[in-house]
């Protein structure tokens, strides 16, 4: 009960930001509840990763083993289960990432841990952990409590907490846990890089981005014309790629590209966190959406509440007038 265990996530030799974000949240919780913060670093050829993690935790548990080379949940799950059974932490945090979502739910079932996914905040009240998570596509927050249990498990949303400087003197402990071979039922084959398209949206100073609100492919040309009038490129959120209206290399968001343009115009994009994580560092963000409560307006500097099929042509016209 006196420990918060954070699974350090890394990919292709790089520790991921979510690792430090979770450790920061864990330190905040630990200070309030008297719990120590422990990072669990699993992998193969970890190099100096433990040194990098050390200042962020009270203890770093390290297991460097050839079978842990790939983040295969079928190998990581039993190792993590072993560590949890041995350490009995009060709280286990795993990133709500493509890796974490493939691991945490089955781990929760296997160890019968109370489990909340995609948490954006955690608090300890009167000795019990409470989580905040979002439902209905980011439009509603839910406060979730856990039934009384020695250990609870959460996945924690990337970018929900900042990466902070830390100065703890984490003790590095080598773990001795039997690591199974990668099972025949689930074998890693390879990583395949995303295809490169004709336009690199990450290099553009002006990005005009469209989302689900586009509704019809026929509405695409007016957005392209607006982008052209601003000297920008057209990008999009996931539903537009899913519908086949724009290629994958135009997608902004966690499973697409991260852009930092001078101007980001979000049109018909509700602003779920997966999208926000790919554009929130833009210098100026403008949102056009018909739902005044769309999360995108919280991230934007300027907003227009309205129907994009009316606003986009009007805006293009006004820009043309100013140019004339």
């Amino acid at each position, binding site marked *: 009960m006196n420990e918060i265990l954070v699974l350090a996530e890394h*990919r292709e030799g790089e520790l991921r930001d979510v690792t430090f974000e979770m450790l920061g949240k864990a330190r905040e919780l630990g200070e309030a509840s008297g719990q120590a913060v422990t990072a669990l670093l699993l992998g193969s050829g970890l190099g100096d990763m433990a040194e990098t993690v050390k200042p962020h935790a009270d203890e770093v548990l390290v297991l460097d083993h050839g079978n842990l080379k790939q983040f295969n949940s*079928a190998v990581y*799950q*039993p190792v993590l*289960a072993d560590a949890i059974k041995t350490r009995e932490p009060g709280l286990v945090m795993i990133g*709500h990432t493509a*890796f974490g*979502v*493939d691991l945490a*739910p*089955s781990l*929760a*079932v*296997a160890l*019968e*841990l109370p*489990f*909340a*996914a*995609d948490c954006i905040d955690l608090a300890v009240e009167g000795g019990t952990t409470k989580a905040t998570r979002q439902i*209905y596509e980011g439009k*509603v*927050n839910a*406060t*979730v409590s856990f039934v009384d249990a020695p250990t609870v498990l959460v996945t924690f949303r990337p970018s929900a907490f900042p990466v902070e400087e830390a100065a703890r003197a984490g003790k590095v402990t080598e773990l001795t846990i039997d690591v*199974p071979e990668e*099972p025949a*039922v*689930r*074998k*890693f*084959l390879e*990583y395949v*890089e*995303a295809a490169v398209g004709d336009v690199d949206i990450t290099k553009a100073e002006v990005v005009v981005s469209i989302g689900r609100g586009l509704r019809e492919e026929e509405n695409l040309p007016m957005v392209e014309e607006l982008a052209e009038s601003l000297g920008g490129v057209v990008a999009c959120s*996931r*539903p537009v790629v*899913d519908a*086949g209206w724009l290629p994958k290399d135009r*997608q902004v968001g966690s*499973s697409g590209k991260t852009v930092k343009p001078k*101007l980001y115009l979000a049109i018909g994009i*509700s602003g779920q966190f997966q999208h926000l994580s790919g554009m929130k560092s833009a210098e100026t963000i*403008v*949102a056009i959406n018909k*739902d005044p409560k769309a*999360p995108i*307006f*919280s991230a*934007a*500097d*300027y*907003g*227009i509440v309205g*129907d994009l099929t009316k606003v986009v042509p*009007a*805006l293009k*016209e*006004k*820009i043309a007038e100013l140019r004339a």
Partner: protein
Amino acid sequence: MRGALRGSGVGRERCRGAWPDNRNRRNGEQMNIVVCVKQVPETAEADVKLASDKKGIVMEGLPLQINEADNYALEQALLLTEEHDGDVTVVTLGPDSSDDVLRMSMAKGAAEAVRLNDPAFDRGDAVATARALAAAIKDLEYDIVLTGCISSDDGNTAVGVALAECLELPHATYVTQMEMGDGEVTVGRELEGGLIEKLKVKTPCVIGIQTGINEPRYASIMGIAKASKREIAMKSAGDLGLESGDVGAEGSRTRIEELSYPPVGEGAEILEGTPAEASSKLADVLREKGFVS
């Protein structure tokens, strides 16, 4: 096989029950697929309001539809069974209105439909819901179970992977590519930044489908007419050998305490007026910032 994964998980024991001997074996070249689908309110562009008890939302006025990722999972199942000759069974857990989603699935080509229909299943968290689905699916014949990787209402991204563990099957989620082999499937999982992780997973398995993997079809008028007369197999907790304490709110180890609207930070400066007026204000802002020169 998978000895290492067969730890002493109590949870798994709790959700498995007795396995039929003939489960999920391929019958010659035939391939059968179970798809888990869910009916959800359409909220992406709606004004979502909290119910007065702050435990749920006001559902009135929100159109109900198949969860988007589940629709892609259904399409994937139909494509695979058309290619490999087999049947699709759709399974849902939900209220009476969910029959619409099952019938629409049958109109598109699903052969059978099962609904977990019992108040005991209500308000279960991801793990309790997976446990209930597992109890219904374990008696079916299948090679693959497909689920959407996320639901737009609860957004757990968890039921499919939890279900796999309940069924003691391997899994992969966030799948955007799928290629059938002999007794195995090669999948591409979409990771952050668009990187694809390729894996080989042996069947039977549970695969969580990400949106965009295919182009979901529409049901034909003829299909809809035929499906309206089709039978849906109803299963209560008792039918599945479950106690009310295993599933639903009672079987959940998390509780929703309260719902609230996300805090709006500084937020955007809203440019008011008609589309022309608001656009004029925005154009001025863009000029001031040097984007119109």
